[in-house]
């Protein structure tokens, strides 16, 4: 059975483009162009994966994510955007998105990303990896939770390789580890990103009023 996908984006052109792109391999069960519709339609259709734009009229993509996740945590979100601003992206991840890609992503890679999200893994684009390294840069004086507030050296290595443009498979080969291990590291980074109380992260999040 193919993965069911729901699209949330207020740009009609982009919606139809993605729809055509995913058509054969995925089951596109619906699309919405504003926050409130998106929330009710996603709750109705219960898709496997939701592609959600960062910038949306009426609350932004993170409003969709947090509202849906409250009721059905099993729906998975992949954020996509043309936006560069780190706070927007971090806000999406903090709200519960399992990955972030830019809209300029190549057609084949979008499908790979959706499958990866569906399998419960995280999808880090080079740009997101850069943001995360930035957010976790430096050491925290007396971290509240050392487990969550810092990245391990291995995680940093993985993120650096992703930021350098390597795919997970290449990262695995470079570090001489399995792809599964790479995925584990990335998922662990995602968890820290969502749960850490690091000042840099909470500042971004509270600017967006999602914490």
């Amino acid at each position: 059975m193919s993965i069911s996908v729901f699209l949330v984006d207020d740009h009609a052109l982009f919606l139809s483009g993605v729809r055509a792109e995913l058509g054969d391999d995925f089951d596109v069960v619906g699309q919405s162009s504003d926050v409130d519709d998106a929330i009710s339609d996603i709750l109705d259709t219960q898709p496997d994966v939701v592609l959600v734009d960062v910038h949306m009229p009426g609350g932004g993509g993170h409003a969709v994510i947090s509202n849906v996740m409250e009721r059905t945590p099993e729906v998975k979100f992949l954020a996509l955007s043309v936006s560069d601003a780190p706070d927007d992206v971090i806000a999406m991840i903090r709200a519960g998105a399992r990955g972030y890609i830019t809209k300029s992503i190549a057609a084949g890679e979008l499908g790979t990303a959706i499958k990866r999200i569906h399998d419960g893994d995280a999808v880090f684009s080079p740009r997101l990896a850069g943001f995360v390294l930035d957010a976790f840069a430096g050491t925290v004086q007396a971290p509240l939770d050392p487990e969550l507030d810092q990245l391990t050296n291995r995680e940093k290595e993985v993120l650096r390789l992703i930021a350098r443009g390597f795919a997970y498979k290449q990262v695995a080969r470079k570090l001489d580890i399995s792809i599964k291990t790479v995925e584990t590291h990335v998922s662990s980074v995602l968890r820290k990103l969502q749960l850490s109380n690091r000042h840099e992260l909470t500042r971004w999040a509270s600017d967006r009023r999602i914490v």
Partner: protein
Amino acid sequence: MATPASGQLSSAGPPNFGVYRRRDDRVVAGLASGMADAVGIDAAYVRAAFVALLAVSGLGGLFYLIGWAMTSSSVVDARSVPSDPIVPASPIERHRTIGAGLAFGGVLLALSHTVLWLGASSGAVTLTAFGLATLWARSDRVQRTRWTNALLRGEWTEKSRRELGLRAGAGGFLILVGLTILFTATDTLRSVGAVLLAALVTGGGLMLVLGPWMYRLWSDLREERRERIRSEEREDLAAHLHDSVLQTLALIQRSKNPEEQAILARIQERELRSWLFGYNGDNGGSFAKAIESAAASVERDHQIAVDVVTVGDCDLDPGVDAVVKAAREAMVNAAKHSGARILSVFAEVDTGEVEVFVTDQGIGFDTAAVNDDRHGISDSIVARMARHGGSADIDSEPGEGTEVHLRIARSVR
């Protein structure tokens, strides 16, 4: 005299301070009961006040006249629904109004004879008052409409209307007191202090009465200015989009080559993004921005996509600048020789060092067999980095793409 025709209630009437002359409850022209309504007290008190002031050199009459000129009459009280039909003044009412006007004129005339100075100043005051009323009525058309609309549609709360009435009442009272002091003081020419006090009190009263109007005028002006700034910003935006995005879109439509279209779109995207995020083309001594613009220039000159990720930032110094130049050279090399369509550039500023990776997934080459004619790598990259105390490692294998790794220790300041 510029007395407004009585018996007309319409939104085009003069401003009222929330006070209408009540035609259904009046002794002379209904001003007292109208004022009483606005303040929320019994009309008898207001009438008593007017009568009492009449006793003070006939001031009550003068103020009644002023109040009369500055208000319009209402069929019923001001709080009623606007759908009430506007009843034209009946001949009897008109006669009564004219009669009242004549009576006031007589009173004024009589006063001017008995006390000479009051005749002169009351005339001046009356004229000024009517002049002000007319001026106001003319200059204030928009606000007046808004105001009367608010009043008639009942959009104001009971509280705000009461406040307005109270303010007008208190202000009016202060003006009365002030003028009374003024007149009595000039009468006996007792002291300059009393005149000053009178001026102060009168001024306070005027502030109370006119304050809200002036505030409204001021905030309207401010709003207008803000609107103008907004529209100027819109024009700037439109101009910018026209010069950049629209031109590129036109180019893309004319282009038959998908790759060229993609490049055009990318260049435009980068340009627009840097504009949106406030980057004005000046690196400002920032390493990250220098890397970004190096990538942008390679993208433009060599028709290749360059993905840049930067972590941290630092000021440019000769060493760091060398890294930027070497990185640019590495990008140009990759663009020319790798055959890849996308380059990745990752620049990281750590506490100790600055690192840049320029990575492509292209054809790669055998690093052991670099030709001498490829000066780019040996001179511009390796030698340049060595000169500044840094290093350049080139990692490549045929078919495996190429990665150039530049690093330099940060100079201690």
